[in-house]
């Protein structure tokens, strides 16, 4: 980052207001009274006073001059303070998320004119009031050093003037010579952009619009086209479903709109009065959703149609042709039939016939109108790849004179488009960075970042979300809307002090929605939805069944999936999502070929082997990882990697993973039968944050079955280790506040949003792949993931295996110890049981123990306890003996092994001026050699207390919350004052499910976990606990 770039530090510098300019020139805001001194006529014979004056002044002057040795930083205080900007006080603007194109309501936290964090908009209850990791980390795209500084032509080194640029573009567009112009956009959800394109078409009649999405859900849209005459993705409401059956749909992690689905799903997962939803997951890879299912059964995704058919049959009272272990299909069918109208069946397949079956099943179960809403349907990601394929073939034939890519990056995710697009003479892109499409373009019209622009989005029919600028444009960008209009000859000058984009957006609002624009923008969203209706079903299940039965099975299959966090890869240049470990595999920074244990054993493959994978004539070399729970004969590779970032990127984001979009091919087929896989190397070391996956039968996570819980609310949590006797009476925290947290293991899905939210709130540094390989990730909050393996029904169950306490394993028991696993594998000489895995997620952060072992051992009192029960870290007192870290039973303390800021070895946002703008000013950026850890967001605690004090009132109940709790989509984390009887936390602390982790060592933590309840028929095995 060359320091010649000047970033405005305050509105005035930006607007170059007059008195700013003048004041900037003078060294002092007000002049010094020098004239007074010198105009003194008898100054020639200076008397003592004068002498002292001069002496004093010259001394001061010299001192000041000496000060200039330090590098000059343009930190100019507000000369004229802008309204409602108070230094040190954050402002919150309602806006829309930028990570998922369709839009998601949120609040942007702005400090001194800089957006520093996204926070969920709790008022938009329909969306659930949570954010995921990607949504959080996408803010960094605003402070991306690779952002374009202005409009560029191919081959340009430096930006051009907009006027010249526009001239060229217009001439180019006018000289298409009868050929047509294509505008490629993401699935169109922005009213403003729609309008702009419409206006553009009035000038250029020969314009076609093409919708493109990297991830296709065309299976659903086509099926719905057939079934209901609407090529749309319906809106799902998992909160209305008591029985959920998912065929390979990772709806909690990556499928369609997981942020919303999670919070809906979680509503039924907490067993209030013994009722909670039942969730079947039939899938091949080990997905986040599968990890949370009550019954998860491994299956081959290529045979999903047959299973759907089987379920369909079972629901119709026929014997299913094909069955899964323990007659799961039949079971699911029974449960579904008992919950007609209160259930939901979803399928991750992108095949029309599969989805048609799903539709007919849901119709049969009467889920339309309750859990499925096709009236106020979802509007995002519903592009059909055929539309784009048509565009490609036409482009090949040279039908286009020009193409305009607006806010999409097809040349990354669609290999077929590349040489076709090259045939189009004029290729215009509106983008904020030089992405794969921009680099292939003749003209790049630098766009405004979403956080710099106005917008009206419509994620669901009838639900509008408003985006407003939260920062003045950082670079010479221009809204793509304005650009389009400019090329269409429209007048895009600012009017009455407002930008063109604002005026245009306002007009669109007036014409299409109407009402109080300012009110709408302030609230952030408007909902005027229609009543749910049960659509008329015109689909034919049997056709689909016929089509499905004609499929031929292959012995193995490759599944292209999305990773939680990285998703489709459009934000591949924001390090937070890559440092965030995958919720299931705990791998950071890489994508990999995930392999089932039986396959790995059969082929003698090991973690880190380099595999050559050939599918759809595309061949890649990629390291492999053994994934417990994955179905035999299935392989998976995550999409969204292998981005081509600009040369300036030097850190681990460069050449990150392998791009496997080409494998999906033009038909967007994510399940490829008969992939060719061979080992070509070995020795890749994954950067995993957790390498030991069994819980060793320890009483860290407690769980019980729903039945057991119905009988006894303390089920699974009945046994409490004796608290050791204390030699001294404990300190009294009953006065004032006593902060505490509760984490509900039932609603926690492990989505890891909290990790990213915490990292951004607390300026946790990015350390990169190698440091994580050395086991030095800095996350204050981690999510522990443990597997336990179900002993399947099989004849050699009589053999007794020593399982800690000398019990013999029965079918349905869970193996939780590494040794027993090995033993079992060797005894049964099979590793198939690795497919039947039970997963538990446990967020782990500083427990703020009242008897904290870490505090006792610090020689310099750098970590002490506050009277409000916070375990405080005094960074600038810490000398870094690391004794506290060793003595922490929860291993949540993190040490600054290097200087992670201003260090070219860690060239992430902390290393450049632009990236540093996202740093939270309320939290110290830790220096090298000090210990750090979760502080319960003490900065939030303090500001809340101060606000209350300033307003001269008592703090309200749950007036504020910490970053992780605030962002949790499933509301699993609750923070509050344990001394406040009305607070949610003090209620949860009384819950029968509440327990402390390793309570017996007497640390008396301030965090309680709530026992995990699984809605499973068979009694949980207490052995493991």
């Amino acid at each position, binding site marked *: 980052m060359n320091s010649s770039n000047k970033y405005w530090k305050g509105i005035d510098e930006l607007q170059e207001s007059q008195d700013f300019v003048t004041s900037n020139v003078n060294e002092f805001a007000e002049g010094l009274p020098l004239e007074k001194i010198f105009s003194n006529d008898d100054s020639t014979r200076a008397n003592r006073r004068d002498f002292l004056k001069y002496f004093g002044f010259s001394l001061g002057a010299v001192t000041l001059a000496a000060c200039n040795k330090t590098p000059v930083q343009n930190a100019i205080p507000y000369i004229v303070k802008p309204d409602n900007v108070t230094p040190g006080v954050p402002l919150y603007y309602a806006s829309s998320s930028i990570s998922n194109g369709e839009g998601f309501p949120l609040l942007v936290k702005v400090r001194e004119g800089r957006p520093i964090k996204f926070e969920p908009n709790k008022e938009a209850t329909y969306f659930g009031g949570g954010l995921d990791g990607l949504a959080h980390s996408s803010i960094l795209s605003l402070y991306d050093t690779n952002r374009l500084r202005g409009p560029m032509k191919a081959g340009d080194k430096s930006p051009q003037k907009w006027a010249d640029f526009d001239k060229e573009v217009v001439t180019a567009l006018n000289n298409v010579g009868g050929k047509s112009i294509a505008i490629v956009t993401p699935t169109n959800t922005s009213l403003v952009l729609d309008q702009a394109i419409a206006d553009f078409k009035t000038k250029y009649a020969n314009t076609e619009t093409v919708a493109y999405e990297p991830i296709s859900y065309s299976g659903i849209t086509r099926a719905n086209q057939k079934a209901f005459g609407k090529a749309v993705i319906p809106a799902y409401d998992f909160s209305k479903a008591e029985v959920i059956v998912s065929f390979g749909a990772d709806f909690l992690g990556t499928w369609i709109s997981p942020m919303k689905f999670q919070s809906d799903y979680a509503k039924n997962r907490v067993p209030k009065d013994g009722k909670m939803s039942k969730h079947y997951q039939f899938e091949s890879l080990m997905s986040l959703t599968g990890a949370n299912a009550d019954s998860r059964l491994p299956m081959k995704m290529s045979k999903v149609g047959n299973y759907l058919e089987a379920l369909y049959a079972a629901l119709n009272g026929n014997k299913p042709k094909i069955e899964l272990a323990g007659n799961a299909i039949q079971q699911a069918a029974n449960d579904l039939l008992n919950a007609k109208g209160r259930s939901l069946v979803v399928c991750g397949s992108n095949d029309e016939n599969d989805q048609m079956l799903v539709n007919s099943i849901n119709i049969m179960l009467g889920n339309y109108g309750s859990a499925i809403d096709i009236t106020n349907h979802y509007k995002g990601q519903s592009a059909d790849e055929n539309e784009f394929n048509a565009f490609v073939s036409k482009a090949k034939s040279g039908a286009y004179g020009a193409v305009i890519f607006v806010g999409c990056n097809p040349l990354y995710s669609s290999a077929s488009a590349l040489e076709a697009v090259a045939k189009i003479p004029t290729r215009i892109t509106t983008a904020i960075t030089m992405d794969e499409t921009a680099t292939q373009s003749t003209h790049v019209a630098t766009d405004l970042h979403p956080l710099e622009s106005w917008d009206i989005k419509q994620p669901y029919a009838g639900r509008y979300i408003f985006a407003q600028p939260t920062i003045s444009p950082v670079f010479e960008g221009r809204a793509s809307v304005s650009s389009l209009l400019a090329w269409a000859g429209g007048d895009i000058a600012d009017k009455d002090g407002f930008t063109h984009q604002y005026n245009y957006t306002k007009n669109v609002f007036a014409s299409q929605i109407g009402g109080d624009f300012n009110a709408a923008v302030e609230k952030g969203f408007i909902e005027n939805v229609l009543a749910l209706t049960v659509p008329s079903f015109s689909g034919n299940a049997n056709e689909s069944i016929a089509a499905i039965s004609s499929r031929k099975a292959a012995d193995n299959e490759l599944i292209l999936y999305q990773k939680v966090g990285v998703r489709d890869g459009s934000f591949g240049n924001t390090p937070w999502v890559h440092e965030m470990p995958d919720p299931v595999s705990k791998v950071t920074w890489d994508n990999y070929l995930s392999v089932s244990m039986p396959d790995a054993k059969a082929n003698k493959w090991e973690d880190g082997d380099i595999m050559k994978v050939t599918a759809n004539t595309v061949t890649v070399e990629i390291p492999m990882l053994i994934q417990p729970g994955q179905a035999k004969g299935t392989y998976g590779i995550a999409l969204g990697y292998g981005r081509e970032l600009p040369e300036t990127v030097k850190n681990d984001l460069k050449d990150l993973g392998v791009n496997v979009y080409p494998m999906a091919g033009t038909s967007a087929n994510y399940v490829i039968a008969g992939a060719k896989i061979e080992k070509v190397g070995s020795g890749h070391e994954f950067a995993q944050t*957790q*390498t*030991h996956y*069994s*819980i*060793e*039968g*320890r009483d*860290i996570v407690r769980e019980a079955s729903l039945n057991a819980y119905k009988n006894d609310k303390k089920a699974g949590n009945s046994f409490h280790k004796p608290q050791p006797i204390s030699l001294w009476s404990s300190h009294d925290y009953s006065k004032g506040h006593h902060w505490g947290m509760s984490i509900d293991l039932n609603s926690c899905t492990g989505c890891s949003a909290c990790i990213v939210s915490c990292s951004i709130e607390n300026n946790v540094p990015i350390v990169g792949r190698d*440091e994580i390989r*050395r*086991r*030095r*990730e800095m996350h204050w909050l*981690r999510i*522990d*993931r*443990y597997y336990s393996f179900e002993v399947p029904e099989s004849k050699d169950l009589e053999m007794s295996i020593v399982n800690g306490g000398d019990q013999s394993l029965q079918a349905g028991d869970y193996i939780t110890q590494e040794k027993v696993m090995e033993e079992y594998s060797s005894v049964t000489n099979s590793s198939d049981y690795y497919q039947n895995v039970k997963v538990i997620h*446990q967020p*782990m952060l500083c427990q703020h123990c009242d008897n904290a*072992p870490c505090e*006792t*051992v*610090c*020689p*310099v*009192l750098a970590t002490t306890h506050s009277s409000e029960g916070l375990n405080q870290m005094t960074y600038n*007192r*810490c*000398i*870094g*003996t*690391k*004794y506290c*870290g*060793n*003595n922490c*039973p*929860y*291993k949540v*303390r*993190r*040490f*600054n*092994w*290097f*200087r992670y800021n201003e260090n070219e070895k860690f060239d992430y946002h902390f290393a450049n001026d632009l990236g540093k703008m996202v740093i939270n000013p309320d939290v110290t950026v830790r*220096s*090298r*050699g*000090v*210990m750090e850890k979760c502080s319960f967001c003490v900065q939030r605690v303090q500001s809340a207390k101060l606000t209350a004090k300033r307003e001269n009132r008592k703090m309200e109940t749950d007036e504020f919350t910490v970053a992780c709790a605030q962002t949790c989509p499933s509301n699993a984390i609750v923070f509050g004052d344990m001394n406040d009887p009305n607070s949610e936390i003090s209620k949860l602390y009384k819950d029968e499910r509440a327990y402390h*982790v*390793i309570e017996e*060592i007497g*640390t008396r933590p301030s965090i309680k976990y709530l026992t995990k309840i699984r809605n499973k028929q068979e009694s949980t095995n207490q052995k493991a606990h």
Partner: protein
Amino acid sequence: MYQAEIRQPLVTGGKTYSDVTEDICRPIENKPTSSWWLGFTIAAICLFVLVGTLAWTVWEGLGTWNVNKSVMWGWDITNFVFWVGIGHAGTLISAILLLFRQKWRMSINRSAEAMTIFAVFCAAIFPLFHMGRVWLAFWALPIPNAFGSLWVNFNSPLLWDVFAISTYLSVSLVFWYLGLIPDIATVRDRATTKARKFWYGFFAMGWNGSAKSWGRYEVVALILAGISTPLVLSVHTIVSMDFATSVIPGWHTTIFPPYFVAGAIFSGFGMVLTLLLIARHVMNYQDYITTEHLEAMTKVILLTGSIVGLAYITEFVIAAYSGYEYEQYAFANRMFGPYAWAYWTMMFCNLVAPQVFWSKWARTTPWFIFIISIVVNIGMWFERFVIIVTSLHRDFLPSSWVMYHASWVEVGIFLGTFGLFFTCFFLFAKFLPVINMSEVKTIIKDKE
């Protein structure tokens, strides 16, 4: 029946007073031998390695070591305890054996004390440089703060370490220097060059060996010995509390203090033997360091080694009996986990190997004793490694279980401390009498 024993003489070869003086002053007054130069050069090179690696650590950050989020102490504290342990034999030999009137100590205590001091130097390096911000190390001292109240934490075993180690170092130094004064005076009065006369005169503090001074001298020596004995025991007790007072399974053990002290004496004597056997060979001190000395020390090694071995077993039995799954796992993991090789090395070196000293031949065969003494040192290093690393790398939550392997920097620092140690030792051997002349002179005539 009572049999008045006739002991073998402690100094053989019928030495007279002047012979003693001649023999022991020779290395000081003559030019250093080629073997001295060789050893000194090697040691100095290692010392450079130490300086280099430490500089790199401070410049780049502790990340240059391979310690990680779970194993935050690795080789550093292992080496610290290792060196402190070695530093125990010296004071112990001089102090406790003086109290017990064990005359065989006299020819070895000087070098043993020197060893103590140099070992504590080496030890002190690690707690210093394992700090993330070593330049702020002085914050661990109870010094007032310019901006109001800010003090150290007297609950912290690390702070106790600060006091214990510094006290131990300074008292040992005083004890050592006090013992040196008469001998320095001897060298002074033999001095032929001006420089030597001045410097030795400077440090002899005008000692003239008057009966009055000797009277007081002996009282002081006795009382110093008296207070050094509990001091020695306290130091390693406190070091062991670094672990014993923590909550980590495998550390949180009440047996640690006695077991660490025994271990310290064990390793200390191991090191003393290693050094003495070299010195004895290089400087031809066979008449002063007789097989009787060696035998006496091997007996101590046999005893302490057995104590340590007993402690290992006790520890394991207690863990097994505790019924506390974490403790049980910690010890099972030591024996059969990924670091089992370290555990079994330790067991062999510390428990099995010393048992050979039941045989008289083993106790009196220098080259064999030398080998065993090396083995003992290796074993004691591994003991500390096992205690620290295997306990940390798998503690309560399996999610944070990790492996730890030292980086080249850590190895370099460890190697470097040997450089420091032997550099000091070679200089000591060159400039100071390695055997306490005045004491030896009192025993040469014990037998007719």
